[in-house]
């Protein structure tokens, strides 16, 4: 430790200049998105466990069951990879709730709330900034797939569109966890509860196998599961065979989630003591 320097001239640092005009809602949100990305850069280890699971699943399922389920690991990989891509990003969305819950208990949000800015900006910005996480996670899974021999039929355009749609879905889903993050007391509770919701949704879906061989009641659930429809659209886009209906359904789900949970989040945020 160096010795603490004497404060040289505080008076000189006090600004006589006028306050600049307030930033727009968009500008304030973008600044908060920048904050989220900075945190990702300073604390990259926050991604490890959420990315670890899908990597293990992709490798494990491809080589353990690939031959039995689809004739060869490589053939199965073409079925599985869009699914694990979706699964990864869906699991990573839980972090938006956890980070909000962690942040809001510190004094940092008090400072944000006492600033003359657009009220929802801290949350909207954080959710937008989380797209950085989703992109990073997507890149990792796709790179892994390419190394293992995955060759998407939809090419670069198909894969880009698939990732874009995934980001759109993740944006909608994030609001569920931010609302949860404002209701629950501890970050670990947010994490546990969101994973408790997500594991059935990702397992009881069409990510790993075609649901045709499953019992009727389970097929009924899988048909209602939004993750199933997300995976169907992802497969379609990456293979270059997606229909507008498949894409529209995912976008509509995301819009519905945003319409319900974004205002709920903001209501909870405004009334958070």
């Amino acid at each position, binding site marked *: 430790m160096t010795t603490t320097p004497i404060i040289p001239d505080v008076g000189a640092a006090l*600004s006589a200049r006028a*306050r600049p005009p307030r930033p727009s809602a968009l500008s304030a949100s973008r*600044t908060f998105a920048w904050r989220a990305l900075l945190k990702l850069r*300073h604390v990259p280890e926050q991604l490890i466990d959420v990315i670890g699971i899908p990597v293990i699943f992709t490798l494990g399922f491809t080589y353990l069951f690939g031959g039995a389920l689809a004739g060869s690991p490589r053939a199965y990989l073409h079925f599985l990879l869009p699914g694990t891509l979706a699964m990864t990003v869906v699991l990573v969305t839980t972090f938006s709730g956890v980070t909000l819950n962690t942040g809001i208990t510190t004094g940092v949000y*008090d*400072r*944000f709330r006492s600033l003359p800015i657009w009220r929802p900006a801290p949350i909207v910005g954080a959710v937008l900034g989380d797209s950085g996480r989703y992109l990073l996670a997507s890149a990792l899974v796709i790179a892994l797939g390419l190394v293992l021999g995955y060759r998407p039929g939809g090419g670069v355009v198909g894969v880009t569109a698939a990732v874009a749609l995934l980001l759109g879905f993740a944006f909608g889903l994030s609001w569920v966890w931010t609302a949860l993050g404002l209701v629950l007391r501890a970050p670990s509770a947010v994490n546990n509860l969101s994973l408790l919701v997500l594991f059935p949704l990702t397992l009881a879906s069409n990510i790993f196998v075609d649901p045709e061989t499953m019992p009727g009641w389970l097929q009924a659930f899988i048909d209602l599961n939004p993750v199933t429809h997300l995976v169907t659209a992802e497969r379609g886009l990456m293979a270059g065979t997606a229909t507008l209906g498949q894409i529209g359904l995912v976008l509509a789900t995301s819009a519905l989630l945003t319409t319900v949970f974004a205002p709920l989040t903001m209501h909870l945020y405004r009334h958070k*003591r």
Partner: protein
Amino acid sequence: MRPPAVETAGLVKAFGTTRAVDGVDLHVPSGSVYGVLGPNGAGKTTTIRILATLLRPDAGTARVFGHDVVAEADAVRDRVSMTGQYASVDEDLTGRENLVLLARLLGFSRQQARVRAGELLDAFGLAEAADRLVKTYSGGMRRRLDITASLIVTPRLLVLDEPTTGLDPHSRNQVWDIVRALVADGTTVLLTTQYLEEADQLADRIAVIDHGRVIAEGTPGQLKASVGAGALQVRVPDPAQRAHAERVLAQALGVPVHPTSDPATLSARVDDAHRVVAVLAELSSAGIALADFALGQPSLDEVFLALTGHPTRPGTTTKEDDAA
């Protein structure tokens, strides 16, 4: 006529059945340092959180430079910066990033924000640590950064919640210097504290608050006059001399003198510090040598005892913020 920096009337805020703030009336003149003195749980933090628009009052009104904290919250936010008791900077960012972030949120351009952050880091002795993560900062540096973060645009009212709690004396003096420089520059400072000495050092006026109510208000001088200037402690080399010393002291001071748990020490309330010198001389001429003596400021406990007849509630270590 300039409106007062802060004017509250009958302010009430309850959490469940606890009335954390129970009818607080404050009048903080513009351009002054105003101290809110009280023990933990007295309602200090809740009061200033209302002034910083972080809480809505259940009843009563609060105005900051004439603007209502509920109806004109944005106008209040334009004029007030608050540094809370618990770090309101981001530990996972560097000091510089914290300041640039806040400057951007106040409307500075990217370039202006960087320049302003640099100026502040230099002025507050944080330039060396500017690019380190805040979680590696010492308590004093963190607190300075926290206050700096409130000064990106110099606010008209700076609210500091227990700004020196937990700081070493050197860091505490730095915070005091900052407050004095701000006031010299024309900013009004409202600070809460548990230390009478701090309020005495900095504040032009003090409100003593207990159980959510203002129980005394005035200049430090008026407040101390109501409590007595301080406590005199005298220690004799031999416990056998204590009884003799007690009689001499009681006569010279004209107030009751109390033996303490240390068998060689005596303690007395002193209203006039100047008389102490004469009193000590009398002890000497009575043939009583002194091992040690001290004249101390009355503690917050003594202030409370004098004002309320009860000491600060024992065991009140719960954080007000748990309720807030």
